């Protein structure tokens, strides 16, 4: 009985399903996925914008730490320009030049880079910074900036400074207190990894880089 049914079933399935003739149907899988090689290439290039942003932020952070409040304004203005990347490269080149110019027993390239940044800042000073870049910060600002422009600085003077931002929309929180003595960071080194947001202001009114925003008052 079982064999009888099995044979009947096979016969029926052959008749029924045999009538299903799809012909050639264009495979959909070819449309849904790029070849592996192309995907790898895309993956490599997808990291480029982030990489460039990071480099620009690093370069800006170095200059901000080195040049004080005036330079911070310069960077803020420059960061908002379309030549951010170009400026970053210029700073990097300048840092390399300053390093090369140092003697074997000499340390510190802060002044060298600062001079370059100030010169450039004066050229840019006719342009006004973005409205968000008028934050206050006090004291020795070791702000931690990231590529999103959010930064927090802290030190014994209680200043918080916004980090430099590529697009000038950073966040900074200023909590100024009436500490009389500013402590600007003397060198641009050591804060290259996205660190070094704002700079100290002499009387609690500093610049928090682009996007710095605070309310510190002496």
């Amino acid at each position, binding site marked *: 009985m*079982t064999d*009888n*049914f*099995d*044979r*009947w*079933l*096979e*016969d*029926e*399935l*052959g*008749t*029924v*399903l*045999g*009538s*299903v*003739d*799809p012909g050639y*149907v264009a*495979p*959909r*899988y070819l449309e*849904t*996925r790029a*070849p*592996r090689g192309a995907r790898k290439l895309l993956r490599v290039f997808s990291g480029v914008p982030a990489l460039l942003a990071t480099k620009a932020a690093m370069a800006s952070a170095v200059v901000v730490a080195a040049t004080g409040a005036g330079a911070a304004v310069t960077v803020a203005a420059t960061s908002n320009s379309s030549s951010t990347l170009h400026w970053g490269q210029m700073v990097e080149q300048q840092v390399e030049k300053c390093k090369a110019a140092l003697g074997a027993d000499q340390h510190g390239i802060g002044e060298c880079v600062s001079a370059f940044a100030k010169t450039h800042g004066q050229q840019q000073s006719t342009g006004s910074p973005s409205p968000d870049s008028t934050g206050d910060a006090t004291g020795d600002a070791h702000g931690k900036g990231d590529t999103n422009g959010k930064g927090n600085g802290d030190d014994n003077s209680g200043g918080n400074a916004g980090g430099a931002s590529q697009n000038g929309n950073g966040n900074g929180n200023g909590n100024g207190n009436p500490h009389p003595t500013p402590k600007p960071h003397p060198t641009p080194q050591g804060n290259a990894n996205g660190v070094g947001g704002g700079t100290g202001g002499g009387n609690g009114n500093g610049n928090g880089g682009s996007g710095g925003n605070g309310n510190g008052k002496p």
Partner: protein
Amino acid sequence: MTDTTSPLYTPGSQEDFNRLYRDSHARILRTLVAVLGDVGTAEDCVQDAFVKAYKAWPRWKPEAPAEAWLHRIAIRVAISHRRREKLREAGALILRLGRSPSEDPADEIAGQDLIAALRRLPPDQAAAVVLRHHHGYSNREIATALGAPESTVAARLAAAKRKLRDDLGAPPPLADLDANPISGTSR
């Protein structure tokens, strides 16, 4: 399907996957027609299954027959489709009142009784019946295709055939079958 006749494929090879598609597309489509009862829906699910298989193709292990592996993916897609379909059925029933279930003549299949009976089975049982009695898979190959132990496959086949027999009635006498030899199977 037998292992000795299985073509060799290299995992991740675009050319081999294209060949696998050409070789197995129609067979997998027929399996899903039996499970889903509708050519258009089955074709849609087959294409989905090939997309999934294509993504997993670099990780395919040649120990398992490629077509059984594809069947496994396709049957999962079909089961998912039937689950979603059941959720929609309540609402669709109201819209379908007074109309036949399929109004597209291209989707009409001969032998609707058998297809309808298969469709009333759980999808894995319907698939097991087609894999065994249409494609000629062994229990081991069906187990690969369904992702279930062989003993489970045997139980599902027995249960499926019992339900089909009850649903469709007794087959014609053996003498009639001898007078009309089996034809059309793809074994």
